[in-house]
Structures are given as C-alpha cells and as structure tokens.
C-alpha cells in the first residue's frame, strides 16, 4: 500500500515537471511580455534592460530551471500584469472557481442522475430516431409558430419550456425521448454559445438574473470570500453554474441511463419483480445503487476538469475565478501567472487521479492481492 502511494506520488511529480516543461516551451511563442509592461514611449534600451533583469533573454531551459527552483520553494514571483505576488492572486481567485465548480458538479449529478433514471425507466431501447424527431418537433414547432406570430423570443422560449416540462407528467415516454434529444444539444453546443444565450434570455430580456460577476461576497475565513451567503451572490451563481454543468449533466444522464438499462435487464431485478416488490424500491434501491460506481468515478474526474476548464464559462460571465485570471494573463503574456496556473491545473488532476486510484485500491479487492506481484 505504502509502496503504491509512493510510486504514485513520484509519478505525479514527474507529470507536474513535464507540464511545467511543456508550458515553458510554449511561452516563447506567446509573445513579448515586456511589450505590455512598458508603454510605447519606453526606450528600446530600457526594454532590453528589463528583459535582462527578468531573465527573459536566457535560453528557455534556464528559465525553466529557475522556475522549478523557485516553485520548489513555493515562490512563483510577481505578476507582470498586476504587479502582485502570483500565489496571492491565485489564492484570492480560487474560492470563486471552487464554489462555481462544486455547485455545477452537484447540479450535474442531481439532475443528471434523476433524468438518467427517468429516461432509463420510461425510455425505449434503442431510442428510435423517428420518435426523437417527433419529440423535438412537438417542442420546437409551437415555439417557432409563436415566433412567427411576432410574440418574440420569450414567448417561444417559454412555450417550449412549458411543453417540455409538462410532458414529464402525462407523456413519460415522450418526455424521455425529448430529454434525450435535448441532451444532444447540451453535448454539442459550445459553452460560449450557451452562456451568451442564457445571458440574453435571463439577464437582458427577462432581467431576472445578473449577467456578470459574483454579486456581493462575504469573507468567511482567511481571505475565503463566499457568494453563498448573499442573495445577489446566489442569484449570480445560477447562470454560470447551469452553463458549466450542462455538458457534465448530459454526460452523467446518458451514462446513468445506459448503466441503468443494463442493470434493469439483469436477473436479480427480474427476481425482485417476481417477488412483487414495489416498482420504486426496485428502481431506486436495487437498480440505481449498482449503477452508481462508474458514475462516481466519472464525476470525480469531471470535477477536476470543471475546476480546470471553467475558463470559458468564467470569461463569458466575467466570473472572477482562476480561469478568467488565466485568460487575462495570456493576453498580457503574464508568464509567472500562466506558469503557476498550469502547474495548479496539473496538481488538481494529479491529486484527483491519485484519490481515484486509491479508492479503486480500497474498493477492488483484486488489486490488493495482486499488489505484490503485479501493477495497479
């Protein structure tokens, strides 16, 4: 066990070094940071002097070595753009990203699992494309009709949503077809477009939710500012969280549905039915439990990518997290922030992978037996 953990830790270290190395290889093509640090009036000699002082004239492996040396001591330098210590900048932005990620992941999990179970129970296998098309048409056509009647986007949108939700109660099979069809949209539409669309509908047209930012935040503990405790903070969270969770939501839904349909056909479910157990007990106690193992694994891994790749969502909603910090830094060629951020992302993935591996190790007895002779 200990040897396993040590081995994994060593591998993690190598991964982080590799990420930093590749990052430094790329930084040479991002542009000249000094360009943004000095105004156009700056003399060429002054620029050269600054470049020298920052070590930007060194070959990239020297810059990489200096970075690794400093990083090992926990020093990431000063942001070229904002002139503040990088560690402090990233830490001050982290709460926003983590809160957004946790809410998105929970949303994806709850809605994804619920809809997954629903579509598995009421859906048909395999889904016929004809029914999918009918389902989509039934939702889209009334919306389009309203649009052409000049009722505007809101009416169309509202009508589509109303039909969609109401079918869940009186046309369950139809609803699950529709959910499957709509989930295709969630998987294939770019996050950017979804975000802008949500802003347009809920902020610009309906004026219900804020279009940008985090609202009012409250400082909890040691610089951890939270948006959970204020009304504007919670309202601000809704649109970005929905945008960020949509992809994961559809992924989890499709996964649960597939697993669930698999399990529902297994023998012990048939026996349970034969015993006359109530349908809800069979579905939720016996079937769902056995579909959750892969779902939890996937969710864990997706949490990493939600934290790391909230960049687009954060940019669209001007969400003050580490992702938008990174985007601003790329534009200004802020090498210290970019390097630290990429290392941070690598760390998130490495840690989550490590935890997942350890969980496997605990869950799957075969790994423990083979531990001495084979490989995990």
């Amino acid at each position, binding site marked *: 066990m200990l040897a396993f953990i040590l081995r994994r830790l060593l591998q993690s270290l190598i991964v982080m070094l590799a990420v930093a190395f590749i990052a430094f290889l790329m930084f040479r093509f991002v542009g*000249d940071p000094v360009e943004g640090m000095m105004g156009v009036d700056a003399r060429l000699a002054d620029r050269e002097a600054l470049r020298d002082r920052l070590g930007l004239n060194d070959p990239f492996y020297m810059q990489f070595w200096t970075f690794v040396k400093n990083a090992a001591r926990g020093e990431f330098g*000063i942001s070229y753009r904002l002139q503040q210590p990088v560690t402090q900048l990233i830490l001050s932005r982290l709460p926003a990203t983590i809160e957004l990620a946790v809410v998105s992941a929970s949303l994806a999990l709850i809605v994804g699992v619920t809809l997954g179970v629903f579509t598995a129970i009421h859906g048909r296998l395999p889904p016929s494309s004809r029914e999918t098309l009918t389902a989509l048409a039934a939702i889209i056509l009334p919306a389009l009709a309203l649009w052409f009647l000049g009722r505007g986007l809101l009416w169309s949108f509202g009508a589509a949503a109303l039909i969609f939700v109401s079918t869940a109660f009186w046309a369950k099979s139809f609803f699950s077809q529709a959910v499957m069809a709509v989930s295709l949209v969630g998987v294939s539409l770019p996050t950017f477009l979804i975000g802008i669309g949500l*802003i347009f509908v809920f902020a610009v047209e309906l004026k219900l939710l804020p*279009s940008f930012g985090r609202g009012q935040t409250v400082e909890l503990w040691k610089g951890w500012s939270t948006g959970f405790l204020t009304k504007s903070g919670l309202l601000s969270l809704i649109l970005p969280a929905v945008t960020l969770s949509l992809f994961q939501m559809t992924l989890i839904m499709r996964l649960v549905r597939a697993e669930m349909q698999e399990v529902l056909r297994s023998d012990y479910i048939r026996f349970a039915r034969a015993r006359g157990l109530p349908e809800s007990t069979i579905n939720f106690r016996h079937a769902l439990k056995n579909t959750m193992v892969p779902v939890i694994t996937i969710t864990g891994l997706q949490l990493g990518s939600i934290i790391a790749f909230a960049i687009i969502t954060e940019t669209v909603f001007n969400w003050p997290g580490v992702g938008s910090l990174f985007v601003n830094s790329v*534009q200004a060629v802020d090498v210290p922030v970019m390097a630290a951020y990429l290392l941070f992302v690598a760390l998130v993935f490495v840690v989550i992978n490590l935890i997942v591996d350890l969980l496997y190790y605990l869950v799957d007895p075969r790994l423990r037996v083979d531990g001495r002779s084979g490989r995990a």
Partner: protein
Amino acid sequence: MKIQRFAGLAALLASTLMASSAMAETLRWARASDALTLDPHSQNQGVTHNFAHHIYETLVDRAVDGSLTPRLATEWYVKEDDPNVWVFKLRHDVKFHDGADFTAEDVVFSLDRARSENSNMRQLHSAIASVAAVDDHTVEVTMTGPSPLYPNNLTNTFVMDKGWSEAHSLQSVQDYAAGEDNYAVRNANGTGPYILESREVDVRSVLKRNEAHWAETKPQVTEIIYLPIAENATRIAALLSGEVDLVQDVPVQDIERLKNTAGLKVETGPENRIIYFGYRMDDKPLKSSNVADKNPIADPRVREAMHLAIDREAIKRVVMRGNSLPAGVAMPPFVHGWTPELDAFPAPDPERAKALLAEAGYPDGFSVTLDTPNNRYVNDEAISQAVVGMLGRIGIKVTLASRPVAQHSPLITGDNTDFYLLGWGVPTFDSAYIFNDLIHSRNGHFGAYNPSGYADPALDAKIEGLATEIDVEKRDADIAEIWAQVQRDRVLLPIHNQLLAYAMKDNLTLAVHPENQPLMTMVTYGQ
C-alpha cells in the same frame, strides 16, 4: 470636429450649472480591462492613467480640445533669465486624502520618483536635470536644455504625498524582478476628486467622492463602481440588462443596435490615434517578397501606387461601419501641425496605380507579407484583410500574418517586418511625438517604431531641433516642412482615425475624450 468640441463645452457648462443639485448618484462604469496598478508612476498605459486620474492629480491637465489647463499647478512659465528652467506655481489649500497638506516638496518627490530607475514614466522626464522647491508653492524644474514643450509631458504624471510615501517606503517604483510588491500597487493616497474605498483587481473598485476636494463645483457622481468586463458580449449585455450605467469600450458592431435601444444612448467622437501602414523602404530586398534582388517598395512610384490602391472610404463604410475618420496624413486632427490640406487624400485609382507599378518595372506586381495585430485596434485584422484585397487589385500579392499585439509589436521594434499595420496615439498633441518615433531614423532615443529604413540626416536634424526650438513660428515652419517631405516620400500610409464610442443610460451625459480617458467628474445627470 467643431461639433465634438462644442459638445465637450456644453457638457462642461452643464456640469457647472447643475452642480447645485446635490443628489447621491452612483455610477456603475464598465470597461474592457482594469487598471494594472494603483502606483501612479509604474505604468504608462491609458487604462491605468484613466483610473488614476480620479484618485491622483497632475500638475497640468489636458482639455478636450488638446490645450493645457491648470490642475495642481495654477500657472507655469519659463524662468526669465534661464530658458532651461520651468517654474510651476502650485495651488493653495489642497489636501491629500489622508489630510496631509499638498506642498512643493510633494511635487519634487513625485517628479524625482517618476524619473527614477523603474518608473515607466521616466522617458517623459528624461530632459530633467534637477527639481527643486523654491518655497511651499513654487517648484523649479531645471532641464538639460531649452524644453519649450515640457509641460505637455506632465498630463499623466501624478503627484504623491512625500510623507505617506516615505512612511511606506515608496521612494522607488515597483521592480518586477524583485520578489515583493510595493505598497502603492494596492493603496492610494492622492489629492483627486475621488477616494478609493475598495478594490478587487479585475473585479470591482469603488470610489467615493472626495468632499474635501479643492474644486469649487463638486462632481454629480458621488460614488463610482468600476467594473472591468473583458468579454465584449457580456459587457454590452450588462448595459442592456441595466446592471451597468456606462460602457466605455463599445465594439463598433454594437453601436447601431445600442443607439436604437430605448433608454440608452451612444456618444461617439474621434480618438487621438491614427491607424496607418508602414513598410520597409530602403534598398535591401524585402524578406517576404518574390523580388529577391531589390526592394520594390524602395521605388517611390510603387509607394504612390499603394497609396492610390487604398479605398479609405470603403474601409470606413464596410469594415468600420461608418465609425472612423479617413485620413491622408499619419496625424490625428488634434495634433499641432495638422492641416486639412495635409489630411486630404486622392480618390482610389487602381488604373493609375497599375500604370505606376508597370512604370516601376513590376507590371505583374510582386508579393509581400503584411503583419497585422488582431487584438489591439478597432477591427485591426479586418482592416488589413481589406487592404490585402485592394492591393491584390493592382497586382500586389499580399500574404496576411495576423498576431496578437504582444507578438506583433516586437516585429516592428526588432526590424522583423516588411509591411505592417500600427496605430499611434499622440499624448503630447504635437507632431514632434510622431516624428521622434515614426519618422526619425532609428538611433538611440529616436525611431523606436520606425523599421522603414528611411534615413535622411537633414530631416533627422530638423526633427531633433524641434525639441529645443523656442521660436514658435520657426518651429511651426519646420513642422510643416517635415510633414511636406514625409508626405512627398510617402513614408507612412495612413488609413483613418478611430472613433471612440461610449454607451450609457440616456439620463447621463459624458462626452468622448480624445485620449479615451474620460473623467467621471464630467458626467451629468438629466436629459
């Protein structure tokens, strides 16, 4: 132009008339990026200065028409018996936000700090030999030679409190290479009309009106909430949804739509920035051309042909959607030395251009690579694309190389481009600023943005002379002569001046500032 000035004047008048209506007004002001730092001498950058102007103040200020106006200095003149010395008389009864008195010592400290090693403002003060306080309200700045235009360099150099700065060890400006940040990066103590209340970098900054400010009329805006929103669509959505009151950086494609939205209005006006093309015009062959033995652009007929091939009106209409002032000279109309005659440009004439190319020995044209930034100026890449097509019509085959500005600028300062697009703002509002960097051959302090290889020692001498020429008429004549030569030799290929657009709720008024540094003290409420 006239209309613009009038609008500015009207806004000023309105602000004085309506100042009595003291209401608590909060202005939520959004723009594309945040001030980089609060340290007033650390960055020579427009957004940073714009923000700093609310907290800190300068000795002299620039009016919307480009003239200098008093701010912390009430008058300034060259000392009678010494043409090298500028005397500044300072305003009385001015206090810093922490209550300290503003005196000559603060000015001496600030000017010395602004010209110290790590300051990005220091090139503006490179001609200073020494700064001395004569009494509490008089400062003498001794220059290394006659510098008739020096006060023009002071419009973005802010005054800090000496006592406060020394208490926080701020004698020197932040050094990037050092491991720590400077207290002034995140804290401010100025004399300005607003006091910094809170600041979260890249997120929001709150400024409260300084009730103890020296100005007789108080600004109507009592609280400013400054919101950097990087994404264009989000920034405009925030205005449409009523979450911000003023958007400073409006993309051209949204101007029409916002104008037609009830409850909003858009103010437009020219920015003090010229967008132009430059090229290598010495005898060395171009790096990116199929003509390998000589430089086609070195031939004046080829440059004339390129000039005639460009349809500036079409660029204005199609690329800029009407939001530009086409230009025939590489100088915004605000700049001293500008004349309508210089700014005139010929109608595009591809036939004549083709004939000129043939005459120069390139009947089939030639090829060249055009370097363009894609994130710096309004529709920069689209302008270059349009020019590629226009030059294609006369047989010049242009390959477009598009890069973010951080990669584009080094090509120009490092002599690695044959043909490029650049924009040039003129903060001193004087032609010499353009000549020094764009026309003078590259040499020491001169020609940093001149990769053209254009070198004329006589012209260079004339440009250098502008800095110390005291005789105004002689100086104006020199400026006119230099421009005549630059235009004749077609050293630069000007396209247009950008228009700025500010969008706001329609109960606000704020005129466009030519340097894109509007002061929220100028905002007025009411129709």
